[in-house]
């Protein structure tokens, strides 16, 4: 726990999350403003105070992907470049512990981001939008309690694909660090987000979904709307992917020498 605290402290000092709070806030306000102004649009009938947090979650997820890549840069590449990663290895820590503590710190930060966004989106949507008779989302209609539960569970479930994204960014760093010792910030961000985008395109035609707007939307809607056996499969899939990526990263890290 001490190790995760250390990493959380470093992330906190970097103040990376704060701009995302602001961006998410602006995005939510813009979305609400748009709904309120365009009362004749389809959005006005779709979005209400009950289901707005789910629309907001889609925006939050996009920001979270960028945030997790930035955090991987800060905790791995920047620390490697500045030599502080080397300091951690001069203590009786296993390399596995170093990688996992950084990963869990990023996931905890994402968790905080989600909780704040959930509370905030419920609050502003309750104030500015009509609360609505029922929870409605992508053609599914539910009573308030079920809708609220679905929203909270969606916020939790979406952390699983995000853990896959974070672990992939970590693995990507270890893979490219064999060729490029200290990849630049812009290079790493463009590369990681591009590969994730490509992955998104490749898997967008998965058989279990009939949605046409890409795998990200598929996964999202799938979690939200069909919390059944297949949801468990999705969670298991991303858990296995995360663990596999992390252990692959650790095995590369173990072989790494910190030469003069």
């Amino acid at each position, binding site marked *: 726990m*001490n*190790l995760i*605290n*250390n990493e959380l*402290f*470093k992330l906190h*000092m970097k103040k990376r999350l704060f701009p995302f709070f602001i961006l998410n806030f602006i995005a939510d306000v813009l979305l609400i403003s748009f709904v309120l102004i365009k009362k004749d649009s389809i959005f006005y009938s779709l979005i209400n105070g009950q289901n707005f947090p789910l629309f907001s979650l889609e925006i939050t997820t996009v920001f979270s992907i960028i945030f997790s890549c930035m955090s991987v840069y800060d905790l791995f590449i920047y620390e490697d470049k*500045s*030599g*502080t990663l*080397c*300091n*951690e*290895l*001069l*203590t*009786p*820590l*296993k390399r596995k512990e170093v990688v996992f503590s950084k990963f869990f710190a990023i996931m905890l930060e994402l968790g905080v981001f989600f909780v704040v966004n959930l509370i905030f989106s419920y609050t502003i949507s309750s104030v500015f939008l009509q609360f609505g008779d029922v929870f409605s989302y992508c053609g599914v209609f539910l009573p308030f309690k079920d809708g609220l539960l679905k929203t909270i569970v969606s916020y939790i479930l979406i952390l699983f694909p995000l853990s896959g994204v974070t672990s992939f960014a970590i693995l990507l760093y270890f893979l490219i660090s064999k060729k490029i010792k200290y990849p630049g910030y812009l290079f790493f961000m463009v590369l990681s987000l591009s590969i994730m985008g490509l992955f998104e395109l490749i898997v967008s035609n998965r058989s279990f979904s009939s949605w046409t707007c890409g795998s990200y939307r598929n996964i999202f809607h799938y979690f939200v709307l069909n919390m059944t056996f297949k949801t468990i499969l999705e969670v298991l899939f991303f858990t296995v992917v995360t663990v596999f990526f992390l252990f692959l990263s650790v095995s590369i890290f173990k072989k790494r*020498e*910190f*030469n*003069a």
Partner: protein
Amino acid sequence: MSGSLLVQNIIKIRENRSILDNISFEVHPNESLGIFARSGQGKTILSKTIMGLVKIDSGKITINGYGIHQNFEKAICKTGSVVDSPKFYEELTAYQNLLLTANLYGDIPHRRAWEMLELTELQKNKDHKVKSFTPAMKYRLAVARAMINYPWLLILDDPTRELDMQESLNVSYLLEQIRANYSVSMLILSKSKEFLLKTCADMLCMENGKVFSFSHDKKSFDFAEIIDIYSVQKAQITKILYSIPCVSEIQSKEFGLRIKVEKDESKRILDTLLANKVNIDYFLPSGT
């Protein structure tokens, strides 16, 4: 054994060249061993190898009785080190940097960080960001960090790397203080012969990845001469002499000081003392 280091026949080959060539030496508990090597002779890679950052092709490294590759955690938990030039979280304060390191060990109380700041005389800079520190302050902070886990063994790689004479002298004082107050064995690798002579009881030399015993390289230390300085201002003169690199030994005598210096350096020493306006009754080379 507490505070012991045993290096046995270690070999490291890179690009078909032996960087570390069958190196063996031992640091006994509460002893200080210096390894003198010029730049590029393998000091940093040796210290990194001992700390497990670089893998060896053959040989064995044992710290406090535990093999570094077999039982890394136990070998390292009572070892402090400063390898390469010290690196910190520059945006954080000195105290925060120490706390981050203390947290990595799990059971270190936070007051230890404060104690180490006092030891290295950085308590006034506790809340200053490390980026504002001079190289000398950074080095002292690195020593504080290396001492935070109550180590039995301290490994210091080129302490004088970025320091001037006076700062090197301060680090030398600090290490003496540590040795006097804590039971710490030391391995110091440096390119400053004078620094090692002042701080270490035993010395080895390293060249082209090989380590020689002191006697093999004795010729480089043999041409010293003795000078007796008759003066009542012993403390003031001692302070000045410590900042002169060619002075290898200072002994306090009834008449003043007896010093050991490199040959043909006596004039330079006299000039330095006179420039500092100290009162000298006699300055007698060769102990005459």
